[in-house]
Structure formats: C-alpha cells, structure tokens
C-alpha cells in the first residue's frame, strides 16, 4: 500500500532543484543558479532556452505557472523568468523552479517562444508582449491580450515609460 510521506517543502524544493540541475547537466546545457529567499532561478543563455525547457519538461516540470519580466534600464537588459512546477510528479509537486533568460534591451527585443514546449505559456507570453514589447519567435498567436493596440504600443510597464501628470481639473466640463 502506498504511504504518503510527510512533506517538508524546503526539502521538496531542494529535490526539485537537484532534479532540474541533473536534467540540464545531462544535456550539456550551461546554466547558473541564483538563490533567493525561498526560490531558485536557473539562468541560461538565450541559445539554450528551448533545449533547457525541453530537458526540464522531460524531468517532470509539466507546466508554467507564471512568466515574470524585470526591466533593468541601467544594465540594459530584461530578465524573463518562467516559473515551472509539476502536477504529475509527486516528488516535486508543489516546488516552483524558475527558468530565466536575459535579453538585451532594445526597441524590439526577441526570445524564442516556449509555447511549443509548454502550452500554458501562451497567454503569459502575450501579456509580456503587450506590456514590455518583447517578441516571442514562433508564438502561434502574438496579439495584445488585455490592452487595446494604441495603449500596447506605448509598452506601459517598461521603466522608461513616463505617466503624464494630469491636472486635477483636466477635462472637467464647465457646465452640466
């Protein structure tokens, strides 16, 4: 009879990290691990992104829970982090591992899309596209998701986007 072991989530996270490291090393992928408070980000180079994602999917990370982007205007780069976790592999279920890539900051930055690996990355990538203007090569349906096209053209979540200060009486009708 299958006994459910008592789960210690820090050890589950360590186990998931070991699994991810082994999967990437066996494919010969160069990576670096960044440790934070309760999370690990595996940073790979741009050309290893799709290969690394495929290796992690084979290791049991079967879906993307979120995709975050940070804008570093001084270092002139974006950092994309795909947060991966597993439904099916009981040993690592509940642990979240980040797969990150750094993109140089330009007018039209682009990275290969991971929709071909995880289907659940599709809407996240569309949202990143409209808010940051990062284009995903090979995305099946790259349109703005939440914003209308005139707003999405402004790339509103980049750090150099300046919100116009409004006068408090601006646009108030004089009568009626």
């Amino acid at each position, binding site marked *: 009879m299958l006994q459910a072991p008592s789960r210690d989530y820090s050890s589950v996270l360590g186990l998931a990290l070991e699994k991810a490291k082994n999967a990437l090393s066996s494919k010969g992928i160069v990576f670096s691990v960044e440790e934070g408070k309760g999370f690990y980000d595996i940073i790979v180079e741009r050309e290893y992104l799709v290969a690394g994602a495929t290796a992690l999917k084979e290791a049991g990370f079967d879906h993307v829970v979120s995709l975050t982007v940070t804008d570093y205007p001084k270092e002139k780069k974006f950092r994309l982090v795909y947060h991966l976790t597993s439904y099916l592999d009981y040993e690592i279920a509940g642990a979240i591992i980040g797969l990150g890539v750094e993109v140089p900051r330009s007018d039209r930055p682009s990275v290969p899309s991971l929709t071909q690996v995880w289907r659940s990355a599709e809407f996240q990538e569309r949202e990143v596209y409209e808010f940051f203007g990062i284009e995903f090569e090979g995305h099946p349906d790259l*349109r*703005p998701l*939440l*914003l*209308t*096209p*005139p*707003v*999405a*053209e*402004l790339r*509103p979540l980049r750090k150099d*986007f300046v*919100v*116009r*200060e*409004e006068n*408090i009486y601006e*646009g*108030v*009708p004089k009568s*009626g």
Partner: protein
Amino acid sequence: MQEGKAYVGNLDVTAKRARDILLGKVPLDKVVDWATSFSLWPVHLTTSCCSTEFAATFSPRVDGEQFGALPWVGPRQTNLIIIEGTVTKKMACAVRLTWEQMPAPKFAIAMGACALDGGLFYNSYNIVKPWQVIPIDIYLPGCPPRPETLARAIVTLQRKIRSKKVASTWVREGWRGDIEPVIPKEDLCGWAAKSI
C-alpha cells in the same frame, strides 16, 4: 396649406405634423416625461467592481423595481446606462458601442469615485473618465456608493426628467437640448491603430 391640419399623401410630412400637433399639447408632454421617468431600465453593463452595489440595489432589500427601474439585458430595450466604477479603455469602447445602440431618450449615471475623476486609478495610462465617452446626468461619489445612494440617484434622475421636461423635449426636437453631445476624442477601440 392650412395650419393645424394633417394631409394624407406624404407619409413623412403627415407623421411629422401629427407628432407636432399631439406633442404640442401640454398634458401629452407630461405623459411622455412621466412614462419615461418611471421606466428607466438600466442595461447590464458591468464595467467594474461597483456592480456589486448595483446588484444590491435591485435585490429585495432596496428594491430598485419599486422606482420603475429594471435591469435588462439588451441595449436596444433599455434607456439608462449606470457606469459602475472604473472605465478602462477597452471597456470604454464597449460603453460607447452600447450607448450608440440604445433608443433615443437615454440617460447615464456615473457611479463611484473612479467614474468621477479616476479615484484609485487616478493618472493611470489605461483608464478614461466616463464624461469623455458619453454625456453623464448624475454623478455618485463613494467607493463604492451604498445601494441607497444609487436608489436616490435614480429618483433624482426621475425628478430631473419630469421637472426639466428632458424626455418630451428630446422626442419633440429630435436631440437633447440641455447638455452637449460627447464625441470621444481618442481611439478607444484601437480601430485606427496600425497592426501590432
């Protein structure tokens, strides 16, 4: 040509004359205003989170139907828009499209702090003020306003319609005289934008 007589032959002219004769009578003016003010049907258009208070207004405790207001689904059968809270640019497109579909004596209530001046989302890049989209009759402050406030706004709008004869003037003249029409200045729906 004799004044005050309707001529059979040109149907448009006849209908216009008949309408002028009938609506020129003062009691019928009053009937139009009275009937419009007690059949203010708001359309189900939930722009934001004040819609919970909108729902509470038409629930049994503050029974909105006792004032003659009944939320209805289709814009073509309604004559009141209650804008509930924030209006994002994408939603402003829907608000304007709904407003254009509604039949002529139509009114709008802007509800909540966000609908007045932006409220919590003041100075955001993705919201518009409702007065930039459609002409507003009544503004309600509050975050969110209580259901009693919304009921009071409906009653106030009814009084405004009856005292200023808004509906009968609108039907007679063909347009609304007391407030300016509003045309949105910016491209809300993104139809003019180049493909992105």
